């Protein structure tokens, strides 16, 4: 690890000031950042430790929703009684990710900001437009099994690796952010960016902005499923994952909130996929139509070509299961 200065941020305002420059990074759980610092993918001059600034609570909101403090750990969130009862898709998504040791340390804010696990990004001897703009993308003609099939660019085909944010996208959660210009909130669905020509920009946080919380809307009920397909049954990143909140009324879909992991540079939410189900009775043909819409612009890069049929089948399986559970 390169030498750096460690400073415990005395206040949120001071943490914003410190991280407004490029050379200082905020550290919370540190499970991803310290890993990347050991690999010299991240080489900050200073770390601003934000762990003692509060905003670690999980508390009810006035309208019946739930506010998850950015510094609450993934474990505290997944096992919270209200998350388990009212937002089970979120508990399931968190529990499907990483290991207990990592979830005990990783925070909700940090989870949203975690970097891709693309092998080219994490290896400083390889080209990567995300790590070193202009150096090229090794994955496009290289080892691309984990890589994206939707929303890619000729600069970057990396995926956002997390599970939690996929469930938050299906739930329509909102990210609360504090910075030197004040506070603002951004829907989780708009928080992460596609790579485009600027793959090093992964989310909408401006320099000096810090996530303070994630707000879940009032519970919607329904059948909630998080289905994660991976190469081993535990502690592996998603090849494909589906977060689904499904409701049937009189045998027809009356709610279909769907988000997908492992497919893109961000949790993938295409409102047309759920909309095509609404008002229709479940059928294989309907599920195929939903998959057709989702995968309309899907593109494989050789090693990850399998993700296209795998996504179709996983969506099919989730909708079949949800339909049976809801019936």
């Amino acid at each position, binding site marked *: 690890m390169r030498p750096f200065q460690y400073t415990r941020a005395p206040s949120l305002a001071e943490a914003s000031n410190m991280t407004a420059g490029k050379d200082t990074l905020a550290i919370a759980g540190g499970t991803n950042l*310290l890993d990347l610092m050991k690999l010299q993918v991240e080489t900050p001059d200073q770390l601003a430790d934000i762990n003692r600034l509060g905003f670690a609570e999980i508390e009810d909101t006035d309208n019946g929703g739930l506010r998850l403090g950015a510094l609450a750990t993934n*474990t505290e969130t997944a096992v919270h009684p209200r998350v388990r009862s009212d937002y089970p898709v979120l508990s399931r998504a968190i529990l499907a990710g990483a290991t207990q040791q990592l979830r005990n340390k990783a925070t909700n804010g940090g989870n949203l900001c975690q970097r891709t696990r693309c092998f080219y990004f994490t290896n400083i001897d390889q080209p990567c437009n995300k790590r070193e703009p202009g150096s090229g993308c090794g994955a496009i003609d290289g080892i691309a099994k984990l890589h994206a099939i939707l929303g890619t660019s000729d600069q970057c085909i990396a995926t956002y690796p997390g599970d939690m944010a996929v469930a938050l996208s299906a739930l329509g959660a909102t990210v609360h952010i504090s910075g030197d210009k004040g506070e603002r909130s951004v829907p989780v669905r708009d928080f992460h960016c596609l790579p485009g020509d600027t793959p090093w920009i992964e989310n909408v946080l401006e320099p000096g902005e810090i996530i303070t919380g994630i707000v879940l809307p009032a519970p919607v009920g329904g059948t909630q499923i998080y289905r994660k397909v991976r190469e081993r049954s535990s502690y592996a990143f998603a090849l494909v994952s589906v977060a689904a909140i499904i409701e049937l009324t009189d045998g027809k879909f009356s709610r279909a909130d769907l988000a997908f992991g492992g497919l893109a540079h961000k949790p993938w939410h295409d409102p047309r996929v759920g909309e095509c189900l609404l008002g229709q009775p479940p059928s294989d043909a309907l599920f195929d139509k939903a998959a057709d819409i989702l995968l309309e612009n899907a593109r494989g890069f050789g090693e990850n070509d399998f993700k296209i049929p795998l996504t179709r089948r996983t969506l099919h399986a989730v909708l079949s299961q949800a339909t049976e559970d809801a019936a």
Partner: protein
Amino acid sequence: MADTITVNETAYPTPDDPRVSLLDFLRQHIGLTGTKKGCDHGQCGACTVIVNGVRINSCLTLAAMHDGDSVTTIEGLGTPDEPSALQRAFLEHDGFQCGYCTPGQICSATAMLEEIAADWPSDASENLEGRIAISGEEIRERMSGNLCRCGAYANIVAAIEEVAAGGRS
């Protein structure tokens, strides 16, 4: 007052160099070499210790971040003369071959039994709410952050199952 970390009930000053991981602090600064360095990237679990009651990878956290925290390592769980229930069960069930991953396995399992007692669900739990039924499947999922290159998994699960069953009876 200087920053301190309490390890197995003894307080130590935190290191001056902020790069020192909690793992390196334990092994190289205060001589507690029971905790092992495997991958140093949070993938193998050999460095698992218990901090403020929860298990974490000590390789992925800076010692400087732990002012005021209380750390329990394998040395704090038992001694050769008075091993903990899990330490004894690992011996009885041959829950290791080379033993390198064992301190991490035992620290991890010690905290895991508390998590089950608190009815924290896992990815393997059928229901998110209610009592957790202890099973081989639950233990394997909950211990997936601890690798054993000797492949002693069957005996590790047997050792943990025995202690878990005892705790529930």
